[in-house]
């Protein structure tokens, strides 16, 4: 069986400095995969290689069996900053990727509008970003990401700017939405809880240079993750990951 997205032995250097080394990960259709690691372990560099902004020194990126190394426009991207444009309503912000692709504005709005309900954004269509809370803005940003490409989404610490309570709520929402839209995602985070809670598999990354230390499969089905973080099972995962990160610190 071929994977949806695969990186094969990717190495990236800036000058003589090796940022990431020999990274191979694989993601299947509809899977949620996390890259967990401390800052500076090269997570974002790997993302930039996958999205084609950087061309890796060696290795390749395979999407649906095709080599897309160094080319942009195949996978969508979402950052910690929501980057919603303050002068556009939410529906226009969200529909922007469609408009850029040449779809007439009205049609783009209609198409985007169909998904507002599903993303828990109903009623915000005509509002401006500054009228929404941080959590709602990230929802809108994810919807925009999805409308750009329902292929593979790369999420770079999308929820790390939110406060703990909002974060808890948005995690539940995220699992919900992913269940419905079945988007394949790679999720960067430095939050161990978030990684365990939101993933089918977690890749532990350590630096420097950035390497994949281990791959951990979270066995509990995504549909049964309610209050998962209060269970012993969760704590076992967490302990294992913390030891791994600790061992590789020096």
């Amino acid at each position, binding site marked *: 069986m071929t994977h949806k997205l695969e990186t094969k032995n990717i190495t990236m250097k800036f000058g003589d400095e090796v940022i990431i080394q020999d990274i191979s990960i694989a993601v299947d259709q509809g899977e949620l995969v996390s890259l967990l690691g401390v800052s500076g372990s090269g997570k974002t560099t790997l993302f930039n290689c996958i999205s084609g902004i950087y061309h890796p020194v060696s290795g390749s990126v395979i999407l649906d069996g095709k080599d897309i190394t160094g080319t942009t426009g195949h996978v969508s991207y979402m950052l910690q900053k929501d980057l919603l*444009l303050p002068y556009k309503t939410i529906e226009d912000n969200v529909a922007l990727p469609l408009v850029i692709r040449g779809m007439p504005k009205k049609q783009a709005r209609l198409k985007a509008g169909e998904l507002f309900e599903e993303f828990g954004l109903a009623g915000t269509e005509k509002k401006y970003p500054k009228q929404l809370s941080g959590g709602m803005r990230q929802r809108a940003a994810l919807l925009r990401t999805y409308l750009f490409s329902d292929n593979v989404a790369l999420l770079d610490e999308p929820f790390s700017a939110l406060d703990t309570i909002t974060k808890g709520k948005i995690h539940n929402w995220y699992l919900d939405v992913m269940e419905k839209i079945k988007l394949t995602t790679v999720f960067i985070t430095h939050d161990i809880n978030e990684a365990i809670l939101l993933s089918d598999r977690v890749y532990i990354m350590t630096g420097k240079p950035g390497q994949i230390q281990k791959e951990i499969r979270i066995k509990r089905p995504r549909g049964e993750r309610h209050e998962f973080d209060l269970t012993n099972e969760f704590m076992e995962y967490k302990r294992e990951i913390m030891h791994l990160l600790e061992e590789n610190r020096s």
Partner: protein
Amino acid sequence: MKRKSASITNKINSTIYPGLTILAILLLWECLSIFEIVPGYMLPSPQETVMAFVHDFPLLMSHLKVTLIETLVGTLTGISIGFLVACLMDRWDGAYKAMYPLIVLTQTIPAVAIAPLLVLWFGYQMMPKVILIVLITFFPIVIGVLDGFRSADQDAINLMRSMGASRWQIFRHIKFPDALPNFFSGLRITVAYAVVGAVLAEWLGGFAGLGVYMTRVKKSFAYDKMFAVIFLISIISLLLIWLVNVLQKRCMPWERVETETGDRRENL
């Protein structure tokens, strides 16, 4: 509710205080004239000024029309050229480097100094006035718009690029709206300057306009009429600034919406 009534009191306060100050000054001025502390032929009383204004109203309006047309043509031309130049300078770094020092340099030449030259070159018609206004309005617009373009969020631009947006789409969706607030601040300064510029150019020669009228009444030592013109010029400047504010509110509806204060905010 509380917030609403507070904002109304605020509004009333912000009208009452300056209103009272102006009234006090007018009263003081009136007293100066009535008790002849300053002789009447040097400082006309507010009352006399208003009388002169009413008496000369049709004449003032005919001159005002000329000045306003000059201001409008000059400002619109200045804005268009300024905007175009800003776009060029943003698009090509070479153009930026080549033109930026030159544009700053032109601002070191005082308008008062070139105005007589313009009259000598272009005569007593509308041309020298319009050119002077273009020179005055051009600078705040170029600098304002250019800064707006340059302060556009680079991450947002990168995101647009990753979605495959063209240069034009990035301009239309990000750079242009980002430059609007700066454009309007520039425009606000500009319109007030433009009226002054027009009057200044008219002083130096012309057949009609508020500046021409001013030099005429000055020669006949009609101080009350001079005050009436000054009064009219500041009213016109205020009106134009108000107009820019209205236009800005129209063009930037997102500025007016309630921000994330309490109840209006959508909670997760």
